[in-house]
């Protein structure tokens, strides 16, 4: 090696100082080189190198960059040789911040894949490669029975714990650990039973009539039929309906909870000869859960009022 740069640390906090030293060994300098060592940060020469000849005849230059404000830059150790700057060694400097405490950790249980997906807010940009790991234990009180770490993919703020690592219907402790070269931070712990954070998919909603024209039992009514989301059939749940006449600026009206024994419901009190938009959603109940999204809209029209 002709020259060799050694660093106090290749990664610093943005704005901190960086100290580097470059040693030019003898066979390189004996080539009649002008042994004045020069430093370049990216494309720019950096003054302030303190040079000395070591007992073994090698030249060493030390430089301190007081406030390193680049997130990434190359530091080069150079020599002037027949009017051209020769790069003898180069190192990459990086700067950023330690990870902030991840926050807003929340989880949802997916009944299709039966995995527990947790997401979080990573906090401000660190400018450094930062890993996020979901840590969990099969108990909230102690750290017995650890569950394998769930490492989020680069740049992602979510991770999914597989069914085989979960004990459903038991509380588990979950938190997020963020780590980069400058430090580690840990979110507050969540304590939850995966089944209590189930979010159902919407039910299927349709009219009983053969076509879009409803077959109302009586005027101003619509006869609806629905089917809960199949993977949730084993769950006791409650559902609610909302409807809105397709008239400019009309509000939604909420009906519910709908009786779940019969998957049919006669919605009355509507305007005759009017087009309505209807949607439905369900939630695990009375055990805890999250509301599903509203189902896709069902558009129906009520029958004409029969002249009396």
């Amino acid at each position, binding site marked *: 090696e002709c020259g060799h740069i050694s660093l106090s640390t290749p990664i610093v906090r943005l704005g901190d100082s960086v100290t580097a030293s470059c040693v030019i060994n003898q066979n390189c300098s004996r080539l009649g080189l002008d042994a004045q060592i020069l430093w370049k940060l990216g494309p720019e020469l950096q003054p302030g190198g303190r040079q000395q000849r070591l007992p073994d005849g090698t030249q060493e230059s030390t430089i301190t960059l007081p406030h390193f404000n680049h997130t990434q830059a190359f530091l080069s150790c150079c020599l002037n040789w027949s009017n051209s700057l020769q790069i003898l060694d180069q190192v990459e400097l990086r700067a950023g911040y330690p990870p902030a405490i991840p926050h807003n950790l929340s989880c949802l249980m997916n009944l299709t894949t*039966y995995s527990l997906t947790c997401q979080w807010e990573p906090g401000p940009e660190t400018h450094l490669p930062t890993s996020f790991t979901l840590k969990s234990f099969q108990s909230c009180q102690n750290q017995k029975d650890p569950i394998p770490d769930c490492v989020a993919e680069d740049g992602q703020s979510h991770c999914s714990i597989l069914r*085989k690592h979960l*004990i459903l*219907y038991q509380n588990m402790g979950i938190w997020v650990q963020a780590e980069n070269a400058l430090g580690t931070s840990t979110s507050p712990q969540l304590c939850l039973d995966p*089944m209590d954070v189930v979010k159902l998919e919407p039910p299927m909603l349709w009219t009983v009539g053969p076509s879009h024209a409803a077959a109302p039992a009586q005027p101003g009514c619509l006869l609806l039929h629905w089917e809960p989301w199949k993977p949730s*059939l*084993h769950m*006791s749940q409650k559902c609610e309906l909302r409807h809105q006449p397709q008239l400019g600026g009309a509000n939604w009206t909420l009906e519910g909870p709908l009786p779940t024994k019969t998957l049919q419901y006669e919605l009355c009190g509507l305007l005759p000869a009017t087009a309505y938009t209807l949607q439905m959603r369900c939630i695990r109940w009375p055990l805890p859960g999250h509301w599903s999204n509203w189902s896709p809209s069902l558009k129906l029209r009520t029958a004409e009022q029969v002249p009396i």
Partner: protein
Amino acid sequence: PLDPASSLPQSFLLKCLEQVRKIQSDGAALQEKLCATYKLCHPEELVLLGHFLGIPRTPLSSCPSQALQLTGCLSQLHSGLFLYQGLLQALAGISPELAPTVDMLQLDVADFATTVWQQMEDLGVAPALQPSQGAMPTFTSAFQRRAGGVLVTSHLQSFLKLAYRMLRYLAQP
């Protein structure tokens, strides 16, 4: 002895009912696949083989509503679930098509056993040591694993039917 009606939290009973329904659904899915794929649709055709393989059944004799002995019933429920967890594990390698269904069923049975055990501990009626799995049948051929799958699932469904009736009785307001 514990008074059944008051000592079990409603949330425990609701969770158990939900878990039973899930396991029944898993079991039905496995039975459907065994029937569709291997034409093994009738457990009663495999009774003799079941005896030969030594597939055990477990009683829920402390659970009938008219003579419900809660501690004994919970203990039998847990022991039964623990046994079926072992039997399902013994079916490992049943077939690539059935493996995901058996795995899900086994996980759900294991979780239900944990729910019951946790409640027994909360009531202070859990034995000091968790039970250990006894000798399991050995399935020496692909057919025996499939037939074992039919029998174990069928026994499990019968077991769950009794458990569900008991839990519904206890959960009624």
